[in-house]
C-alpha cells in the first residue's frame, strides 16, 4: 500500500513533467512549427511543405493521440533531434550529464559536511555577538548569485594569481589517462565546486543551527541531563541524533536547487555539463534540447528524492513499518 502510494506520487511528477514538455510548444505564443525547425529553414518552406511537416510530426492528429505518441517516444528514449548539435537529444544530454553529476556530487558532500559541522557548533553558542556576525556572513554568502561568485573566483585565481585554469573540464594538452590529465581535471573542478559549495553551505548551516537549537531545548535533553549523562554525550547522542533528521531532509530537498546552481556555474567556466546545453539551446533556439534537459533534470531530481525516501527510515524509526 505504501509502496503503491510512493510509486503513484513519483509517477505523477514524471507525468506532470511530460505534460509540461508536451504542452509547451502547443500553448506557447507562435506557430508550433517555429519550435520544431530553425527560422531560416522555415522561411524557405511553402505552405504545402509546412502541412507535410506537420503531418510528419503527427501534429495534425487529435491532441490525446499526440500525447500518447509523445509519451511512448520519450519512454523509448526518443527525445527528438537537437538542431544545434545535429544529434539525438538523448545522446547529447547523456554525454554531458556525467560532468554535471561530478560537480554536484562533490559540492553536495562538501557543503553538507561543512554546513552541518559549523551549524551545530553555532547552535552551542547561540545568541552571542560572534553568532550574529557568523549569521550575517553566512546569509550574505547564501544571498550572492552563484555565477557572480564564480566570476570573482576566476578574477582572483585565474586572471590575477594565475593558479587555476578557468575553462572547460579537461586539459587539451595532456594525454588522456596520464597523471597530468587527471590533475588537469581536478584543477578545473576546484573553482566550480567551490562556488557551488559556498552558496549551498549557507542553507545547510542555517538548517543545522536551528534544528540543533530546537533539539537542545527539548524535554528529552533535560531528562538526559537528569539521568546523569555526561554533557558531551547529551550533545552528540541525544541532541545531534534528532537534529540530523531535518538536516538530511533539507539537504535532499535541496538537490534540485543545487542542480540549478550547477547549470548556471557551468556556463561561467564553459564546463561541458548539461548547463552549457542550456546556453547553447537558448542561443540556437534549440527547443528540443531545452525540453530534453528539463526532462533529464526532472528524472535526476526524482531519483535523488527516491533515494531520500528509501533511506530516511534508517534514520527515523517513527516512519519505519
Amino acid at each position, binding site marked *: *500500500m505504501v509502496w503503491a502510494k510512493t510509486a503513484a*506520487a513519483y509517477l*505523477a*511528477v514524471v*507525468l*506532470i513533467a511530460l505534460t*509540461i514538455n508536451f504542452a*509547451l*510548444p502547443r500553448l*506557447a*505564443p507562435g506557430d508550433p512549427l517555429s519550435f520544431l525547425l530553425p527560422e531560416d529553414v522555415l522561411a524557405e518552406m511553402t505552405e504545402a511543405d509546412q502541412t507535410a511537416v506537420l503531418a510528419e510530426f503527427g501534429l495534425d492528429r487529435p491532441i490525446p493521440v499526440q500525447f500518447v505518441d509523445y509519451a511512448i517516444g520519450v519512454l523509448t528514449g526518443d527525445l527528438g533531434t537537437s538542431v544545434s548539435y545535429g544529434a539525438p537529444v538523448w545522446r547529447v544530454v547523456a554525454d554531458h550529464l556525467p560532468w554535471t553529476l561530478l560537480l554536484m556530487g562533490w559540492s553536495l558532500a562538501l557543503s553538507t559536511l561543512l554546513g552541518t559541522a559549523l551549524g551545530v557548533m553555532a547552535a552551542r553558542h547561540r545568541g552571542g*555577538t560572534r553568532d*550574529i556576525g557568523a549569521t*550575517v556572513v553566512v*546569509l550574505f554568502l547564501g*544571498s*550572492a*548569485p552563484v*555565477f*557572480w561568485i564564480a*566570476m*570573482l573566483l*576566476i*578574477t582572483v585565481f585565474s*586572471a590575477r594569481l594565475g593558479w587555476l585554469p578557468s575553462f572547460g573540464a579537461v586539459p587539451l594538452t595532456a594525454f588522456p589517462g596520464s597523471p597530468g590529465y587527471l590533475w588537469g581535471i581536478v584543477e578545473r573542478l576546484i573553482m566550480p565546486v567551490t562556488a557551488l559549495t559556498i552558496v549551498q553551505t549557507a542553507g545547510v548551516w542555517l538548517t543545522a543551527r536551528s534544528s540543533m537549537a530546537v533539539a537542545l*531545548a*527539548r*524535554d*528529552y*535533553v533535560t*531528562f538526559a*541531563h*537528569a*539521568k*546523569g*549523562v555526561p554533557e558531551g554525550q*547529551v550533545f552528540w*547522542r*541525544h541532541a545531534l*541524533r*534528532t537534529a540530523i533528521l531535518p538536516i538530511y531532509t533539507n539537504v535532499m530537498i535541496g538537490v*534540485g536547487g543545487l542542480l*540549478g546552481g550547477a*547549470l*548556471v556555474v557551468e*556556463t561561467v567556466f564553459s564546463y561541458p555539463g548539461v548547463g552549457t546545453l*542550456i*546556453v547553447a539551446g*537558448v542561443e540556437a533556439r534549440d*527547443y528540443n534540447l*531545452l525540453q530534453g*534537459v*528539463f526532462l533529464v*533534470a*526532472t528524472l*535526476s*531530481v*526524482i531519483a535523488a528524492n527516491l533515494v531520500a525516501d528509501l533511506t530516511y527510515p534508517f534514520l527515523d*524509526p*517513527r516512519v519505519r513499518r
Partner: protein
Amino acid sequence: MSSIAEPSSPPPRRATPSLSAVQWTGVGMLSVLIAIVTLGPMVLPFDPGESVCPPFSRPSLPHPLGCNDVGQDLLAGILSGGRISLAVGLVTALVATALATVIAIGSAWRGGFVDIAVMRFVDAVMALPFLPLVVVLSAFFGASYTVQIGILCLVLWTQPLRELRAQALNLRRADYTDAARAMGASAWYVTTRHILPELVPLIVPQFIRIAHAAILTESALSFLGLGDPIAKSWGTILFHANARTAFLTDAWLWWVMPPGLLIALSVLGLALLGHGIGDRLQDGTVSGTERDGDAAPRLGDALVEARDVTLSYGEARALHGVALSIPKGETLGLIGESGSGKSTLAMTMLRLLPPAARVERGSAWVGEDDLLGLPKAALRHVRGRRIGLVPQAAMNALNPVRSVGSQIAEAVRVHGATRAEATARAAELMRLVSLPEDRLSAHPHTLSGGMRQRVAIAIALAAEPEVLIADEPTTGLDVLVQESILDLLQDLSARLGLTVLFITHDLPMIARRAGRLLILQDGRVVDEGAPTDLARAPGHVHTQALFDAILPLRGSKRWDRDIPSGAPLLEVQEVSVTFGTGLPDRLRGVRPVQALREATIRLRAGEVLGLVGGSGSGKTTLARAVLGLQPMTGGRIEVAGGAPRPGGPATMIFQDPYQSMRPAMRVRDVVAEPLTIRGMPPEGKVRQALSSAGLPSDDALLDRRLGSLSGGQRQRVAVARAIVAAPKLLVADEPTSMLDQSLRAELLALLERLRAEHELGILFITHDLALARHFCDRIAVMCEGEIIETGAADAILEAAHPYTRDLIKAVDA
C-alpha cells in the same frame, strides 16, 4: 482531578534584542537600495540605452563606473537595472503570496477531494527541478519581464501554499474556529475574521522568501540570456559582462562587482528581515546553574533537606527562601497551583534550570552533599545515581529516535556499569515497572502514554537512587491510567525504601498517598503537616481554600436541587457518529472509527446532566452533535423542539480558555461575537453578560485583549460569550479542568447562579466523577462511544457497570 496540569515552563524570556536589530538592519538596507534605484535614474544625466562614451571606457568623473562594450554608461544601467530586478522580486512575491494564501485557505477549508487534488499537484510541482523548469518555460514564452513574473509566480506559489495550508488546517481545527461556527458563523465570516488575521504573521515570511527566490532566479535567468532584451536588469548586465569576459580584465571592478554586489545586498536585506521571524525557539535548560550567594546551615538530619532556597527569573523572584526536609523512606507531597514554583524547586535541586534563572542563595542537601554548592563536574554523579527524576509528560522526555532499551541501559551505563550489566539491568527494570521485556527494542512512539511513563520510571530507578523526585508524573494521562501509575510509584517506593518528593497540584490524590504535605504559594511555603492535620486545622487561608475545594465522592451533595420539572429541552435519540467513512479518508488509508454508538440522553430545562467518561469515550463528539457541528450517521437530536443548528438555542463553553478565544481579540468583540454573527446590535447586552459572569463591565475591561487576562478571567469571558445571546441550553465541556483548584469552585458557583436565574439546562461534560456527583442532577457514563449507564447523581456510588466501578475506585478515598 485534572488531567491537564499547569504549564510548568518558566516565564518566557524576552526576545533577544539583537535579533530584531538584525531585522532592522535588513529593513534599512532594503530602504536604501529602493531609494537609490528609484531616485538615482532621475538625477543621472544619461539614459541607460544611449551610447555616451567610447566602448570599454575606464571609470572617469562623468562616468564613475565606466562604460560597457557599446559605450553605455554602466552606472545608469545599474541604477535602472535595479528597478527591474527589485520590481520583479517584489511583484512576484505579492502575486504569488496572494495566490498561495487564497488557495491555501480554500483548500484547507473545503478539505476532501479538493484538498487532496491541490496538495498532490503541489507536491508534484515542487518535485520538479526549479531552474530547468523556469528556463524551459521562459524559452518558449519569450523574454520579457512581465512573462518572467508570470513564470516565477507559477513556480513559486507552491512552497508557501504548502506551509500556509498546514497552518490554515490547524486554525480550522482550533477551538475558537469551532466556537465561531457553533455560534452560526458563515465560512466567509470565520475565514476573514479568524483564520486570515491569525495567518498574517506567517504570510509575511513567505512573502520575504518568495521575493528572495524571485530576485535570485530572475538574475540567473537573465544571466543565461533569457532576460528582457529591452529592460536590462542586474542579471542582464552580468550576462553581457560574462559574454565579454570582463572578469579577466580590470573591468571586473566596475562591471562585474557592482551589479552582483547589489543583487547580494538586496537578497541579504530580505534574508535579514526574514531571519528569526516565525522562529519559536525556546530556551532549553542549562546544566549546572551556579549559586550566587550564601549557603544556608544544615539544621536537621533528614536525608533530604532544603533551606532558604531563593531563585529568580530576571527581576521576578520565583522562590522565596523555601525550606523542606524529608526523612529517609518518607514521601513528601509538594502542593501548589500554577506558577507557585513547585517544579522550579525540583529542577533547582537537580541544577537543571533555564538560562534566565538565577539561584540567589540557599542550600539543598541529600545526605552530606549540598547540591547547590557542588562543583559542576560532580553533578552528574548525583543525578540519576542519588536522585532519580520522574518527569512530567513522558512522551516528550524520551528520545523519539532511540529505542526504549538503549535509553534505560544508558542510564545504567553512565554510572559505571558495563554493557552486559546494563543490558541485564534494563530487562530487570522492565519487569520492575510491569512492562514486557520484549518492548526493550521498541521506540517510544509505539508505546501508549502509560507505558512511556513506566519507561520513564524505569529510567529514574536505573542507577538505584535513594531519592526520587516525581514532577506531576501523571500529567496528560487518562484517569484510570493515572491511578495505575500512582499505584506503581507508591508500591516501588515502599519496596525500595525510597525517599520521595512528589510534586502535584492534585490535593485529594496526594493526601491519600503522602505522609506529609508542603503547601507552596507564590514561591513561599505557607503550610506544612500531615494531611489529616492540615485538613482539620489548616494553618493558612490558602490551605483552607484548597481543602474546601475538594469534592469528596461520599457525603452530602454540595449542590442539591429540587427534582427539575421544566419542559423537555434536549432529546438525543440513538445517535451514532462514525468518522473516516468518506472516500477521501479511505483513500488516505484512514480506518473508520465509531465515535458514538446509539447514544440516548434527555435533559429538562433547569437540569444539569453530567456526561462522564475517560478520554476518547465520545463525550465531546456528542456535545458537538448537540451543537449541530457534527453530522450524525444515525439517530435524531432535538434541541428546544428543533433540529440542532449552529447559532441555535444551545451554546458551548470550551475546556481551554486559552484556545477557545483568540488572544488578539478585545473582550468587547469576543463577547459580542454571537450577536455580531446574528446581525444584532451588541450595545448593552455585552455589559450585561459580563456582569452576569461576575466581571466588571467598564470600558477598561471591554478594551483589553484576551491575551492579557488570566485563565480564570478568560473562562469568565467565555461564560459571558456563551450567555450573551440568551441560550436555553449550555454545553460545558470540562469548563473547570484547566483552572486551578481555588478558581473551580467560583466558576461552578457562577454556572449554578446562571442556571437558576435563566432556567438553563446544562450538559456538563467531565472526566471527574466526584465533581459530576456534586454538580449534576443526573449522570450519564460513557465508554467507547456508548452510554453505559444513566441515573441520579446521588445513586452513582451504587452503579453496577465494571467501567463505572473502576472510575469510582480511582477517586474514592
